[in-house]
Structure formats: C-alpha cells, structure tokens
C-alpha cells in the first residue's frame, strides 16, 4: 500500500506555529500500525520527529494521539482499519486540550494533576488478623473491574469537548479512577472522592457526549462509569 502520512509538526526551537508535514510511504503493510509509520519517518526520514511511545502494544498508554480526527493509541491503530484500498492518507495530530510541546508530545502535567485530585488510591488502614488478604467476593471484585483497566493514556479526557472548553474540569480519566475506588468494597474514602467530584469541576461538567467511550483503547464504558458516579452522588 502507499500511505500519505500527514503529521502535525511543531518544534518550539524553530517554528513559530504548527504545520502539517507530508510523508509518502511506500510498501506499507495493511497490518502495520500507525506507530510503525511514525517510526519509519523518525528512523529513516527525519529523526527530529518527537513522539512518546514505549510498549507498542496498548498497555503503557504513551502514544495516544489524534488519528484521522479520533483519539487512538498509535500502536493499536492498524493501517487496514484506516484506509480502504491500495492508497490513502492518514492524518496524525497531538491530542487536543493539552499544550503541545513538540510535534506529538503534549504537556501531561494538567492531566496527572486532575488524576491526583480524586485520591486515586485505596484508603483502608485496617489489616485482617494474621496479615492475610481482605476478603472480597468475585461479585464485589467485578463491580469495579472496568476502571482497573485504565492505562492513563488521556485519550478519553482529550477527546471531551467539555474538557476542551474548560481545562479545570477533572475529565473522564480522573472520574474513572475515582469510580475504581468508590465501588471497591474495601475502600473507606468514597465520600471524600464524591465530595471532590460533586464540585463545579467534577462530574456535572460531563454532558454525556460519549467521545470518551469511543476513544478508550481499553474499551472501558467511560460514560457509563461517569453516570454511575453521578448516581452515587445523588444517592449518598
């Protein structure tokens, strides 16, 4: 296949504003990942291309970016799912809503600040007698399973129009993390988290647009989890 890879480039040491660079790549395999194409550019054409990546199979969460207008992990986006036929164009941009530092690298600090704001850790200092594990039934464990899949890639938060409009909104990823603990039978700080999330920058900024659910590379039903947190605030 022949792919025209359009990459939004910006080097703060040289460029006044971002621009699209085009690379024509021949002999692309349908099963190649967008990450493979970006590597090809970086390794053989222009080593200045900057992107984060590590595991290359959808586990580490480094390479979330906007591909053909939708947030995906570059390592899970296969060319055959983006282009039908023998040739086509793939457009790659940094995630929206976070400041671009260089090329596809954005400032992740605001994202992690929101993550930290929801107390993303188990609160429970009592340990069963004999130091054994706390008991939890498979059903109790299942209740918060979805949220445990999150890899903090930011694909959901940076696909959310509410977050684009207002970066003080904690965003879907932070709510997913809060959900993971609020519904864990072992946790004792649910009320504290719900208090954070019922404030003006909490869950009520979610307008149920579902972009987050579409964007999640781990197939977490993000919008549903947000709705469950909203429901829990109402209940308590």
């Amino acid at each position, binding site marked *: 296949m022949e792919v025209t890879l359009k990459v939004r480039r910006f*080097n703060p040491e040289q460029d006044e504003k971002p621009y699209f660079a085009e690379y024509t790549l021949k002999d692309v395999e349908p099963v190649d990942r967008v990450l493979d194409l970006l590597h090809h550019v970086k390794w053989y054409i222009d080593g200045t291309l900057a992107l984060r990546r590590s595991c290359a199979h959808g586990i580490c969460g480094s390479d979330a970016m906007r591909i053909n207008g939708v947030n995906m992990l570059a390592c899970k986006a296969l060319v055959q799912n983006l282009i039908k036929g023998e040739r086509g164009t793939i457009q790659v941009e940094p995630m929206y809503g976070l400041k671009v530092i260089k090329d596809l690298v954005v400032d992740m600090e605001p994202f992690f600040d929101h993550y930290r704001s929801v107390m993303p850790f188990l609160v429970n200092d009592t340990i069963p007698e004999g130091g054994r*594990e706390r008991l939890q039934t498979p059903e109790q464990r299942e209740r918060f399973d979805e949220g*445990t899949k999150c890899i*903090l890639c930011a694909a959901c938060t940076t696909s959310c129009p509410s977050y684009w409009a207002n970066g003080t909104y904690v965003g879907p990823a932070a709510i997913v993390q809060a959900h993971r603990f609020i519904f864990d039978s072992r946790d004792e700080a649910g009320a504290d988290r719900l208090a954070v999330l019922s404030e003006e920058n909490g869950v009520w900024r979610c307008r149920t647009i579902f972009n987050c659910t579409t964007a999640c590379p781990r197939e977490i039903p993000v919008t549903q989890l947000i709705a469950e947190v909203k429901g829990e605030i109402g209940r308590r």
Partner: protein
Amino acid sequence: MQTHRHEVIIVGAGGAGLMAALYASRNTDTAVISKLYPTRSHTGAAQGGISAALGNHEEDNPDWHVYDTVKGSDYLADQDAVEILCREAIDVVLELEHMGLPFDRTPDGRIAQRRFGGHTSNFGEKPVRRACHAADRTGHMILQTLYQQCIKNDVNFYDEFHVVDLIMNGDRPAGIVAIELGTGEMHIFQAKSILFATGGWGKVWQISSNAYTLTGDGNAILLRKGLPAQDMEFYQFHPTGIFRLGILITEGVRGEGGVLLNDKGERFMERYAPTIKDLASRDVVSRAIYLEVQEGRGINGKGYVHLDITPETVNHYLQKEGEKRRIDREYIETKLPDILDFCRTYLGVDPVHEPMPVQPTAHYAMGGIPTNAETEILANAAGDIVPGLYAAGECACVSVHGANRLGTNSLNDLVVFGRRGGLRAAEYAKDADWVPLPDDPAGEIRAALEGIRNANGSTRPIELRERMMTIMSRDVGVFRTEEGMSRALEEIRELQETFRTDLTIDDTGHIFNFDLLEAWETGNLLDLAEVTAASALARRESRGAHSREDFPERDDENFLTHTLATVDVNGKISLDYKPVVITKHQPKERVY
C-alpha cells in the same frame, strides 16, 4: 545546570523502583527519577501472575516454591536468596492486596491462583496453583497499585528525566546526572544512596516482548564505571510471543489449559516434558518449539507453532488426563481478556475460536548488576560491596533466577527486592555522610552526548540497531555455537566502532530530543550485546537458557559458577567467576 540533593535516589519507576521508593521515603528524603512517566514502565506489561505459596486452592508450601525455582534455574540460582524470595513473596503479595491490588478472587473471597510453568507441588510431582493474578493484567495492577500508594505517600518524582551517568568521587558514588526531556537541560542529583531499577534490555534482539525503552541504561552506565555484569549469557526467550511481533502471550494461557500444537496437530510437549508437558520451564518449551520448526513441523512449514486455548481443544486434553475441570468461552474472556484483545487487534485471530501463531520472543534478563540479598551492588567476585549503590528488579542479578527464570518469579522479585532495597538504601543514607561532588561532575557525559549531537558521520542509529538485532538473534539466541558467537562478537565490535566513528543524527536541538537519547541508548544496547556474547562464548556447556549445540550437556564440574564480566577503560572485557550458593538442593538432572 541545576543541582538537587536527595538522601536516596531511585533510578527507574517500575515495580522495583516504586516499591523501593515507598519504603525509602518513609524516613528519608527520597526521589524517583524516571525517563518515562511511572505508569508507562514495562512492569505494566506483565500478564499472568505473581507467585506465592498461599495455598488458596490446594496445599502449597514455600519449600516447594524454592525447589521449583532452583530446578528452574538449572541449579545456578543462589539458594539462600531463593529462600528469601519464596518466603517473602507471601508477605509482599498480601501487602499488595492491603495496598488495594484488585486480585481475582476465589469463590470464598481469597486471592485467586492459577498454574504456571515449572511450579509444582511436592518437589515436582504435579502442577500447583501458585500464580496470584488479576485476569491477564497482573503487572498492570501491580504498577498502578504501587504508583497509587506513592501518590498517597507523597513520594517525589522527577518524571521524564533520563538518567545518563553515575557520578563517582574516587570509588564512592556521589550522585547521578539526568537530562530533563522537556528542556534538554542537564541536572545533577547528589545522593547518599542510589538504587538502580532500570529494567531489562530485550531490544538487543529482533523478536522481543520488550518495550522500545528497555535499553539497559543502568547496566551500561555501571559497566562503564568498571563494575561487573553477572551471568549475562543467560537471557530468557519466552516460548509464546505473537508470530513476527513478539508481543507476549502469557504462560497463563497454558496455565488455564492451553496447549502447543505443531503442524500435524500433535501436542509435542508430551515428548519433551512427559510429566508437566506444556507447563515445563520456559527454556525447555522454547527449545522444543525451535526444534519442531527446525524439523519441518512448524505450521505450514513456517517459523511458528500454534497455541490453542479454544474450549474444544482444552476440554479434549482435560478429559484425556482425567481432570474434572472444563472451560468455556466466557471463562476465557474473563481470565485472558488482554490476550484476546492483542490477537484480535494485531492478527485478526480470535483465540476462543482458533489457535494463536506463536514463536519464542526475547523476554527477560536473568543476569545483570550483581547484588547481595540486601541489594547492595557487588564490585567483584570476592563479594566486596560499593557502599551506597543498590540495584533491584530485572536490571539486578541477586541471583534468584540463575540460568532460567520461572514464570511469575519476576514480579515477586521486583517487590521483594524492591522493598529490601528501599529499606537498606534508607538505612545507609541515615548514617552516611554526603560524598562531595567532584569538579564538573557531568563533564564526561556532556562530552559524550555532545559528540553524538554533533556527529557528522553517515550511519543512522537505526542501522546499527537493526544489524545488532539480526546478529544477536542469529548467533546468540535460543541455540548457540562457538562459531556463531565468535562471529557475533566480532560483528558487534565493528558496530561499536561505527557508533564511535561514523554516527549521524538529525536533531541538534534540546527540547524532547529523542533522536539524541535513542542514539545514546543504542550505544548501551551494543555494549550489553557485546558483554552477553563474550560471556556466552566462554561458557562451554548448556544450562538453562544458554543452549550450545557444540556443548549440549550441563557441566557442573567446570561451570557451576556465576560469570562476572567487566570492561576496562580500553573496552577490553575480562571474565571472572564466583561460586553458586547451594544449601538444600544438590544439582541433579533436570527433567520435567
């Protein structure tokens, strides 16, 4: 250039680094420096489980775990360290649960356990359920849980700071040098205790389960300081990587009943390991796959075999073996969701309906920075320590894995020795004096990096990497010969020479200059490849993951020893040896 001061510096934020940070930060000023955001670390890619003899499903015993680990190591592990690993594994798994790790549960609410390769009850009698797991994302849960606890405990992080050098003042460590990726600025970190937890270097080989960022930085830095690397010839090839991509397919698939089949549909592990078959040690299974392929029984004559977890196949063999258990599709979806996702995403193969194409993939370094059980770095074969220097996790070699690591024993290693390392580093820092920084502490590494930034040769780093991966996979892979390894050593040295004299990169800037740092990482990989080949060449026997066609037998008389490789200032490698610690289990023939 900024200078910082912390009593304890931890380099790397995977499982070992984060556990060490949690413990060290309790009573000392501790900082974690990592080239990645912590949750990007490759601990997160571990799948199948962390073993501990909890006995939640059936009788188990840490003594059996010790035996299995020693046998799995082909008797090269130090048995005093293995005892610590297997006993403390129980504590750390329970501690992880207390921290909130969402383990799968038994019907009565305890931590769920599954079978895994080489783990048996009653000293090799039959497979035992010892691998504590959270679906097939156990490593992800460990990494997330430890990071969560670090946030709770307000641990200091310097995220996206790439450590490039260790500062020594004479023979005493004084700190480290790191590049802040976002600015390209060099930072000096003065410290009393420095713990390396930088992970592995699987990117030396072509087909690899490892992340792009696993380039053995810590190991290469310490080699350049004249410190030894231990047992580098022992590198694990995991039997089941996705064909061509190398992405890991957990041994948990076989733990749940999956079987390996050749082109004739034959369950070939019955021939290689009659007792525990597909659950033999990884080195044994990888060799079996390699031999099946070599003898023309790869699928369609190609370089892979099938790993089959379809209920039809699994239940057929469960019935054949007289086991009552049966599985269905829903069970597979619950227990192995990520594996299914990988196969569906990358192969268009749905493992609940059809088998997965797999081949051995470079996976894990048994060797590394020699340490004692307190994680103190050893300077020589006599066991002298370098006060203030520590290592834990995959980059270290205690040695608990010897010549071949058992599945699940990497995760308990991270947490057990991460904890010991954090405690010991903090204890040392409390009483130690600050070692003064020498003049221009970053001078040497600055010159090296500027040399790369301004290099005007004609060879791009990727060309060196690709050559290296080809050479190492061809000659220093699953099977090895004198001729192949000699050739590899010579060719790797040519690549090192090209790296020094004919390199070129494109990016001369400072902000997020990955071009520069990946070139530097390429140099690290080349150095580790060279030491691996040299150590392997000198070991004229077959043991664990080191299989020589020209010396097919284990030779305890001459090689029941750990290799220690050092590189002098002229780049010349010397090999030394030290004895293996044997307590309860005398070496005997290893049959599964």
